[in-house]
């Protein structure tokens, strides 16, 4: 340490993971570098998580910071195999923010909570002077009850598992890029921000055996797959052709020279399940509106000490798909 924090420290790549590890070690936290915890209490296991939300701009097509702050935390709980129950809500507001705008954000928080089936039970508001933050920052934490028959973990993916994604990837990241207006591009890209609660409910009801659940937020699908590969010490093989990417997202990415597999999603789940459950899982997911484009995209192809992700490209080639390093930069020419 001794340098300065740069934006890459928050971009979801290697620098962020190193920073979190450093913070955890100084806090003497038992579960190092993990953004959520499961602990036993009387009557079952409880999942607990916290997250902060900054969004620039705070409103994009299909999502705003309020909706994101609910779904982000709810979805973290879902990836722990939990049914989300209660949320806290803390707001840091910049002096000068229009009240109407604030109430619009509160309105979408309320709608998102209702849709996700969670109650907001505690919270806090702080106002800082102009320039002290950018319009509004939101922190939420959440608790949920872990389904009794589920034990999921990023350590738990196994050779022979199928890899399923519940919908198109990169929508949220692309919507944010488009809304920043820096590119002056006209596009219909809309965020996928949504709660994953019903998706997990469906899988549990169908008695699908689940090994790992992960939501590909910052760093996108590629980074999430690498996290699982490294934690579970496995090799994952995915097929580019089978990974759903919306046409408008891939067009935007082509223009900017960005790979959609590294763009964040806020309403998608990546599921690792034994191959024999894969077909049933995809079939039942497709009946739900929020996962109607669910797809089998690959498999865990073997063990690997370092954790490898391989991509079979649409062009018929093979290459490694590493995790995100730094912020994706649009190209010069």
């Amino acid at each position, binding site marked *: 340490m001794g*340098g*300065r*924090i*740069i*934006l*890459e420290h928050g971009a979801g*790549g*290697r*620098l962020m993971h190193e920073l979190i590890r450093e913070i955890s070690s100084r806090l003497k936290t038992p579960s190092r570098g993990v953004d959520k915890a499961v602990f036993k209490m009387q009557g079952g296991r409880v999942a607990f998580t916290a997250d902060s939300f900054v969004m620039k701009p705070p409103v994009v097509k299909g999502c705003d910071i309020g909706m994101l702050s609910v779904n982000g935390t709810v979805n973290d709980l879902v990836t722990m195999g939990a049914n989300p129950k209660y949320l806290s809500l803390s707001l840091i507001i910049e002096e000068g923010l229009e009240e109407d705008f604030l109430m619009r954000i509160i309105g979408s928080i309320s709608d998102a909570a209702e849709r996700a089936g969670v109650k907001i039970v505690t919270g806090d508001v702080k106002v800082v002077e102009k320039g002290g933050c950018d319009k509004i920052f939101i922190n939420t934490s959440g608790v949920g009850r872990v389904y009794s028959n589920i034990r999921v973990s990023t350590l738990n993916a196994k050779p022979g598992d199928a890899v399923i994604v519940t919908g198109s990837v990169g929508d949220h990241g692309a919507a944010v890029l488009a809304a920043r207006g*820096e*590119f002056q591009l006209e596009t219909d890209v809309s965020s996928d921000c949504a709660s994953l609660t019903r998706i997990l409910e469906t899988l549990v009801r169908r008695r699908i055996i689940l090994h790992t659940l992960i939501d590909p937020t910052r760093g996108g699908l590629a980074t999430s797959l690498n996290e699982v590969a490294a934690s579970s010490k496995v090799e994952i093989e995915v097929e580019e*052709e089978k990974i759903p990417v919306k*046409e408008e997202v*891939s*067009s935007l990415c*082509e223009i900017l*020279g960005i*790979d959609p597999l590294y763009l964040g999603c806020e309403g998608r789940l990546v599921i690792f399940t034994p191959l024999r459950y894969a077909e049933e899982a995809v079939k039942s997911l497709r009946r739900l509106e929020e996962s109607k484009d669910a797809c089998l995209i690959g498999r865990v192809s073997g063990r690997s000490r370092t954790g490898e992700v391989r*991509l*079979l*490209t*649409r*062009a*018929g*080639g*093979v*290459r*490694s*798909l*590493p995790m995100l*390093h*730094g912020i*994706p*930069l*649009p*190209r*010069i*020419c």
Partner: protein
Amino acid sequence: MRFIQEYRDGELVRRIAGKANELLERLGRGVKIMEVCGTHTMAIARHGLKSLFKDSLDLVSGPGCPVCVTPDSGFSMVFQAAEAGKTVATFGDMMRVPLNGRSLTTLRSEGLDVRVVYSPYDALRMAEKEPRKEFVMVGIGFETTSPLFASTILQCRSRGISNLRLISLFKLIPPALSKLLEAKDLKIDGLMLPGHVSTIIGVRPYVEIVEKHSIPAVITGFEPVDIVESIRMILKQLVENRSEVENEYSRTVRQEGNVKAVRLMREVFKPVDSEWRGLGLIEGSGLALREEFRSFDAVEEYGLKPVETAKPAGCLCGEVVRGSRKPFECSLYRKACRPDNPIGPCMVSSEGTCAAYFYAGM
């Protein structure tokens, strides 16, 4: 996406690659093809195209990434402008270029005004909106980008905008190709010529070079079908003992190029000798503002000085740029040097050879 999906058809790609492999077999020797453009390097990596060919085909990357070929002395002037309190407007690729342990990203975190733009017109709009600030555009790129900057400078002049200036680090591709082909150690058998640059300059500028060095060359698009097809075309020329400029990317590249863009470029800039990383000084390979546009020259106006820095120990960027070494031959690659902690410029840009190799796990 029309014009993209059909050029990514896996079956077609494999069929063409199969034909190319037959030609390789007939040649019965190692063949080294250089892709001159960084976007080709990235496309080859991204689509895993190397895995489709026999090992006797060696694909080497050339000096086709603007950030990579710019020497540290060029970057030093950009840093000086920021340190002198000017607002620096630059493409995103430049933000992480390392110089003496610093970068524009770290300068920004220290409070200096460095802004990422996606087009020089963005800089123009900013300069117009904030007339009290002095803006410096970083002019970096090949024939694809310089016409845009030329048009921006012309607009500045006609709209009377005087708080926007340029550091011209522009480079021209044909002189660099000549220099590369003169090098005895490289032994390149064929050239994949850059599609974007050729869209601007057309086919003619390459003809003399190709004749002089008797080397097969194909102007190539950026999709998998384009790339494997141009490899096949180069191999076919080798088998038939031909050496000419062929145009695979004819859906975009016209014989005469983009006449208007070239005219703009010539109106505002004049060719000058220019220093390239790895290739040294190349005659007539850079662009400087013409006399009548001197007032837009940030280097002159602010007295910026090109300062050479000692290259980081072990860094092979110079060799990688000229195609004489591969990224994985560098002792820093993947260890100390990574996209989030680049030691040399080839690891910075998405078109950089080292970044492309890293990205594809090579």
